[in-house]
């Protein structure tokens, strides 16, 4: 019962936040509201017992996306330009679509209904087979890492594509190695603000440590490469904000970041190809070791590492690309 109350409360807040995002013309406010939106969403996922998704939404939606939005906002105007026409047409289209979707949910199985199709078909098989085939308790990791590992590989390449896309578009007209991407030596971050500096410095190591925990504990509890990569990137971005971008780039130069982006994607694909070479199908981890269960575990640990490395490298590359543009 208490969950229903919480759920209704959070969803109401979600609607209010969404309306506020649409209504506001101040883009800074909109970005902040979007961050709140993601946090509410994460809380919702948590109530629905989807801890893995909640962690991802909190780390990426509320954390990294906000930073990147702010980076982009620093390059454009603060306020939205009012578009004179098309407002009512947009409203009409959105209303029709919303009505259709609400109508479609009238025949939706009740929330949490054990007889719903989604709980009757493939899900029981996953729950039953995971301990036997992989010997790990987190079924979500098993599904994402192995049963549907090909989709996860695809998502890693989506992140990879986003990263090279940002680098490609923002480098237009300039050389990659010089000019545009050189950090402003004057930038000192928040070094002169005592309280953020002291508190932030304390936080950074713990954030990175927590990221590593999420990375390597993904087989046993909520977590995995995507969340870990985002959390570690958050830690480094906090460091960049406190100490200035140049210090962050000294610690992790651009070439290293690009190497991470490439290396993680190659590691994941390489594990898949290794499965092929050892006589299985692509992304078949069972053949990696003589014991298929151990093989599955090794495969999942390796590909999760690949995911984490690529996500962390990509997010930091994107952050630096925006930040460098801002410094000019």
């Amino acid at each position, binding site marked *: 019962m208490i969950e229903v109350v919480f759920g209704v409360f959070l969803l109401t807040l979600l609607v209010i936040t969404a309306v506020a995002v649409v209504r506001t013309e101040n883009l800074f406010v909109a970005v902040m509201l979007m961050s709140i939106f993601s946090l509410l969403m994460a809380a919702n996922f948590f109530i629905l017992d989807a801890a893995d998704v909640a962690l991802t939404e909190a780390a990426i939606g509320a954390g990294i996306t906000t930073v990147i939005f702010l980076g982009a906002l620093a390059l454009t105007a603060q306020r939205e330009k009012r578009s004179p026409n098309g407002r009512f047409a947009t409203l009409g289209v959105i209303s029709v679509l919303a009505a259709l979707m609400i109508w479609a949910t009238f025949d939706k199985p009740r929330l949490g209904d054990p007889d719903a199709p989604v709980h009757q078909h493939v899900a029981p098989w996953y729950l039953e087979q995971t301990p036997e085939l992989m010997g790990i308790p987190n079924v979500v990791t098993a599904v994402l890492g192995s049963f549907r590992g*090909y989709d996860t590989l695809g998502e890693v390449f989506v992140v990879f594509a986003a990263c090279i896309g940002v680098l490609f578009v923002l480098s237009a007209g300039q050389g990659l190695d010089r000019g545009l991407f050189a950090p402003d030596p004057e930038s000192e971050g928040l070094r002169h603000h005592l309280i953020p500096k002291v508190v932030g410095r304390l936080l950074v190591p713990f954030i990175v440590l927590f990221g590593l925990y999420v990375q390597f504990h993904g087989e046993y509890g909520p977590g995995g490469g995507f969340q870990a990569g985002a959390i570690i990137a958050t830690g480094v971005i906090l460091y960049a904000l406190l100490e200035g971008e140049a210090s962050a780039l000294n610690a992790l130069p651009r070439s290293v970041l690009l190497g991470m982006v490439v290396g993680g994607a190659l590691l994941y694909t390489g594990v898949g190809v290794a499965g092929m070479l050892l006589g299985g199908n692509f992304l078949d981890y069972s053949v990696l070791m003589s014991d298929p269960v151990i093989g599955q575990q090794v495969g999942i640990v390796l590909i999760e590492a690949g995911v984490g490395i690529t996500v962390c490298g990509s997010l930091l590359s994107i952050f630096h690309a925006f930040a460098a543009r801002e410094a000019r």
Partner: protein
Amino acid sequence: MSLSAQLPALQIVVPLLTAPLVVLLKPRGTAWAATTAASAMAFAIALAIAAGVLSGETYNYAMGSWPAPYGIALGIDAFGSLILLLVTGASTLALLGCRRSLDADIEQQRQPLFYAAWLLALAGLSGIAASADAFNIFVFMEISSLAGYIIVAGGPDRRALPAVFKYLIMGTIGATFYLIGVGLIYMMTGTLNLADMEARLGDVTNLDPVLVAAGFITIGLALKAAIFPLHVWLPNAYTYAPHAVTAFLAACGTKVALYVLLRFDFFVFQGNLAEHDIQFSLFLLPLALLGILIASSVALFETNLKRLLAFSSVAQVGYIMLGASLVTVTGLTAGILHMFNHALAKGGLFLAVAGLALAARGLELRQLGGIARQMPWTFGAFVIAALSLIGIPGTAGFVSKWYLIQATLDHGALGIVAVLVIIAGSLLAVAYVWRIVEAASFGEAAAQPDTGAISPSREAPTVLLAITWLVALLNVYFGVRPEAPVELSRMAAEILLAHLL
């Protein structure tokens, strides 16, 4: 496992694995070489698969060795193999031919990123064509779309950026609609595998959410496929993209979305939703007819060569949808065959445009004055591909239009209207092609004051010229000997219709 059993996975893994490596290739030309090699290898794999399909094989592959529906399955039938041929072939020929053109458009330091994105687009489009899983199709749609935005943004004109932004917004809306539809079906069936969806939908008693899902998926993919009137992103994206990218994407980009639309509709919805074939026809047939007429008319008044050809592409999507919306074997055969033939014609045209652009001052028709005299060979190939676009007998375009007319004539009064529209569309094509030929042959060369210093003959680079002529001659070859593509299209049409009750 034998190599031939691994072909479906290799089709995607080869470009996917090469993409990150290409980012690291800094020395001049190496990124292009690696990309071309990977693309050529993908083309060879696609040819092997097509040969296998023609001899009666179907390719199924279980990713990670997990059986469907628990794991992700790939499944390549005649339709998929035809699309794979188009995607890999267009990519390979555009890369081989357009090296100079791409060097002119994109700075040396940015080339590794560009070629990595090209390979991702190739891998994404191939992944869509090979997949038998609804969510997996979405994932690879994301890869191909993102990579597509990147390579279009490589255009030398600053106007490429707003064009890409529009493309990105529309493409994202399309993908989101598709995902909403897949989510609704998953809610009702608990599965993501297409074949499994079809089977399990039979047991679903309340089909209202599935009907909504069909609507969302159809509209989302229609956006991606630039079906009139959802084509607004296409003309500028094609116009301001680098010429090689236009040749690649114009030949196969929208076709992959059409492929998913037809496959999803026939595999999942046609057999399970009552009277879905009639709804499908009623929705798409008018759009197809309007698209042919209006887009061709707009092309008639367009002054930029690439925009003109882009609007012609929107009209050609209309022909494909016209064939498909008849929901008969002949209609679908004609539509699918037209995908192949239009890819040949439009690919050849845009390759020739890449050659013309290297010498012309701009691609406005008035800037092309006298170009046919300066580049007779390049322009000759352009004209042959244009004849195929119109549908002159002896070219590939004629074969599919002939099939299309035969298919529509089975439908009484409606068929007569459709035939009239096809003929009107072809006449409009004659007119807009003539405008280009007229400008290029008889236009005043005086528009180019600096030509005096340069020798009168300035053909496109030899490699590009050879590739353009190869594609132009393929248009003629498949006009005279259309057996292989017709056979693949007929097999594809029968596979689709086998899902109808």
